[in-house]
């Protein structure tokens, strides 16, 4: 049997796999598989691991996602209220940095596993690694230091600070966030994550200009990856366009894999990154809520054709909304398997 790890391994060594690897980022749907509330589901690494395994087996994509919810990082750094919904991801309900002086009080644990929820997360990754038996890459997910403050103080306050605020305060906050990010990468790798998805929406070209990216964000990408190293790191768009910053990332960071936004052009990305980089192209997954299976098939076919023309790539989603009907998830994966085949032997 060809596995997800075989497929990614082939791409990373410049070989052609049997088909395009499929990354299907289902999170909250795991609770539905187990018939439990989202709050209960995210209280236990065992439950999340079981949910992820069942989802992968059910739909047949190529990865195991070792993630709970983004707000967990804010929780570890002092957020006291996580707001749960019945039909979507848990959200930050308390800002750890309410006033500038709170930045000085921010505490990054030496051992992130001291935090009970983080310990559940690393336990989940260990369970996924064990369950995978070398077949499916386990993905760990971290928020970049440049984007993390938006969860700690709100995006408006963060923009105020990094654009026109106190530089020393800004840099102190980024140092702490970078320390947290680096430690998190290390902890997730130690737990068994094969790939680290590095999420940096505020650094994307949707949020700041390429000039500001070079000036403000890029040094922190470099810093985040300095200790843990860039091997196996995937730069994820986080919902923003990243083609305009790819050249700088390629030149300065050592990152070898990039996960594009649905509005980024994959051929352009390939031109910028060259033949070696692994590129993932993402579908606009909000539309999966109400596209028909035929529309999904057409959309996937288009992405696959463009991706294959651009050379070795993976097919993926962003974070798939809870409301996407099961038949549409099946239609997505079925279409990706059908149109992603390299049966003709040509990449």
């Amino acid at each position, binding site marked *: 049997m060809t596995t997800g790890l075989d497929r990614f391994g082939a791409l990373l060594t410049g070989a052609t796999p049997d088909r395009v690897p499929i990354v299907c980022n289902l999170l909250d749907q795991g609770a539905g598989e187990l018939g439990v509330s989202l709050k209960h589901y995210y209280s236990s690494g065992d439950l999340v691991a079981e949910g992820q395994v069942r989802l992968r087996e059910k739909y047949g994509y190529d990865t195991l996602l070792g993630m709970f919810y983004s707000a967990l990082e804010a929780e570890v750094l002092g957020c006291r209220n996580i*707001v749960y*919904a019945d*039909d*979507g*991801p848990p*959200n*930050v*309900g308390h800002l750890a940095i309410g006033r500038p002086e709170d930045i000085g009080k921010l505490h990054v644990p030496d051992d992130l596993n001291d935090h009970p929820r983080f310990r559940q997360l690393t336990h989940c990754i260990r369970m996924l690694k064990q369950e995978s038996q070398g077949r499916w890459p386990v993905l760990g997910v971290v928020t970049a230091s440049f984007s993390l403050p938006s969860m700690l103080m*709100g*995006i*408006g306050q963060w*923009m*105020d600070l990094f*654009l*026109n605020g106190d530089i020393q305060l800004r840099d102190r906050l980024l140092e702490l966030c970078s320390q947290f990010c680096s430690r998190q990468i290390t902890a997730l790798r130690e737990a068994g994550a094969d790939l680290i998805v590095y999420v940096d929406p505020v650094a994307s*070209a*949707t*949020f*700041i*200009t*390429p000039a*500001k990216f070079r000036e403000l964000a890029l040094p922190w990408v470099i810093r985040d990856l300095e200790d843990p190293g860039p091997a196996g790191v995937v730069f994820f768009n986080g*919902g923003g366009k990243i083609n*305009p910053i790819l050249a700088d990332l390629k030149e300065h960071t050592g990152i070898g894999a990039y996960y594009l936004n*649905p509005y980024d052009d994959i051929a352009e990305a390939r031109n910028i990154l060259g033949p070696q980089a692994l590129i993932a192209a993402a579908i*606009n997954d*909000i*539309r999966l*809520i*109400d596209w028909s299976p035929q529309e999904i098939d057409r959309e996937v076919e288009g992405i696959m054709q463009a991706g294959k023309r651009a050379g070795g790539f993976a097919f993926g989603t962003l974070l798939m*909304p*809870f*409301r996407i009907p099961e038949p549409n998830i099946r239609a997505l994966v079925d279409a990706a398997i059908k149109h992603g085949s390299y049966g003709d032997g040509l990449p």
Partner: protein
Amino acid sequence: MADSMEQRTLNAYLQALFDTDKAAALKVIQESLDDGMAPEKVIFDIVVPGMERMIGGMISTDNLITLSQHFLASQIAEEVTDRLIPLFASAPEVQGHVVIGTSHGDFHGLGKKIVSGCLKARMFQVTDLGINVAPERFVEAALSANAQVIGISSMMIHTATGERGPKRVRQLLNEQGLEHKMRIIVGGAPYRFHDNLFREVGADAWADTAAEAPAVVARLVKELRS
């Protein structure tokens, strides 16, 4: 001559916004006032065109207008408008009243803040209810303020489409017989990824960018008044 001076001022202001340099932008405004430009001209000939060209993405040949530039253009517009309106020779005509907030369960306030600044600079009264606003609160506040339009921002699909989001606000307007008095406008990332979503959640309209919001709100207000 005066026109070219205004053009130079506008260009300098646009450059400051493009560079997301708040201090430089405020300096341009202050220098215009110091040079004798009327507060009304500063708002309508510099701040508003600057905001709309920046947020509308129509500046120069570079189409990479970003959220940080939107944010700054709107923030300055709001601050300068609040400061200069009391200095107008006569009170400006209020274009309408909008009650705005993010939907229940949603703690993302950026989009709403940008829209709020754009509306204020276009002489709309704005009541900002903040983030995580219950549907009942939207309706109560709109009634209390005698607002014509309720603006609901959502950053996540489940807060846009959920039962405590815009759909419930629509239901409340219907139950309370207020549909002839108020309109609902929505905005936020989910609507940009899905053309028809605003109708599904019961809204009357949506705006793709904050710069478009004043025109869309003006249309809704006009509908109600006609």
